[in-house]
């Protein structure tokens, strides 16, 4: 039955070559931990992607209960944490996952750097990777404010001062970042929008580029 449905689609759209290319490519021995244990360092990228996937999922579910508004945000987070069935786990996944993404991404970057995998012809993929790193830091910065607790408020109050120190345009930049002259209601809505709409869009585009380039250029050979 499933096979029939698949064949029906395949006849019309010829989808087989699309996934065949991914499915059948030969994975070289030097990245396979089953052959050489030390190749586990090549898993960091995949694990980063795995954690990012759980972040996207847990974020989607958190958004069902969260509200980005200064009078309600903290109460909604408290509600998630203390009241919602397994809400503590859902929030915990997103909270700890955020740190885990950073760690795994940093390890992945070190692996790529020390194996010289960013060298020609793979320069562009390194650049995309570094941009992904910045996007993830952006997620961290904007996401930290959302619970609207003391930690969040003061970290953002200080963090946004940094933008204010940029020569000439600093004050304008800071106001744009905060959506206001101080951290407040507009900051929260702004950070929320950046955290759940703008950055995910950038993340998905960059991730797609990252993976397409890996397929097109293959993984770098053994050292």
């Amino acid at each position, binding site marked *: 039955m499933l096979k029939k449905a698949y064949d029906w689609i395949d006849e019309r759209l010829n989808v087989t070559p699309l996934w065949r290319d991914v499915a059948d490519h030969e994975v070289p021995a030097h990245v396979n931990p089953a052959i050489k244990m030390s190749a586990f360092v090549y898993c960091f990228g995949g694990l980063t992607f*795995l954690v990012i*996937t*759980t972040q996207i*999922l*847990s974020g*989607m*579910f958190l958004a*069902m*209960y969260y509200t980005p508004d200064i009078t*309600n945000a903290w*109460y*909604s987070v*408290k*509600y998630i944490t203390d*009241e*919602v*069935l*397994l*809400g503590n*786990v*859902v929030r915990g*996944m997103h909270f700890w996952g955020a740190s885990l993404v950073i760690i795994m991404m940093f390890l992945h970057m070190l692996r790529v750097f020390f194996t010289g995998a960013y060298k020609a012809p793979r320069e562009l993929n390194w650049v995309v990777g570094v941009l992904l790193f910045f996007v993830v830091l952006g997620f961290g910065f904007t996401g930290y404010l959302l619970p609207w607790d003391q930690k969040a408020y003061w970290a953002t109050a200080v963090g946004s001062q940094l933008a204010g120190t940029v020569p000439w345009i600093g004050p304008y930049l800071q106001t744009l970042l905060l959506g206001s002259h101080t951290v407040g209601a507009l900051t929260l809505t702004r950070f929320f929008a950046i955290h759940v709409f703008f950055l995910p869009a950038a993340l998905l585009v960059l991730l797609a580029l990252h993976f397409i380039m890996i397929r097109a250029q293959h993984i770098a050979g053994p050292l």
Partner: protein
Amino acid sequence: MSDFQEHAPDESLNALTRRQFLTYVLGGTGGFMATVVASPLIVSTFDPLRRLGANAFANTHHKVTDFSRQLPTLIEYTVHRDDGWNSADVAARTWVILLPDGTPLAMSPICTHLGCQVNGTLGPDGKPAPSQDGPWWFHCPCHGSKYTKYGINSPDSPAPRPLDVHKVRVDDAGYLWLGPLQQRNRSGQVI
């Protein structure tokens, strides 16, 4: 599958090929990962099902003995409503009459036709008064639906069913508590 069959035809006919086996294990592993991640997430969305706020009873602070068997009385009371992290005391209104056997009947003032507030028949002093319209005591200002003082709808008015009634409870001190609304059929039986 051709090469493999040439070498080991028996195996391929009766048993899984190695590739199939690996694919199944792969599916199982993927399923495991999906379960680990998705189960807490999905469980959390079912949280509203265990909140039975709609079944809670609210104290009207009126004694059952305050009501009459002749005519309904409009009472105002507050319902405590938990809405997520918001909780509020919401004002609510209901018409209460005692049935001939003395049990209270609390009728919602919401017309079952399109949801307007029905009016009872009131005298010049603002107190409930006997009907001027035969058995019809409640009148809906919107489309003219008519109900008896027990909330039974007139068959020739638009209302499809009698006024909804609250589940009622009387505590030891004689106070009337109102619960969730229930629908009734034409003969006034709770469905």
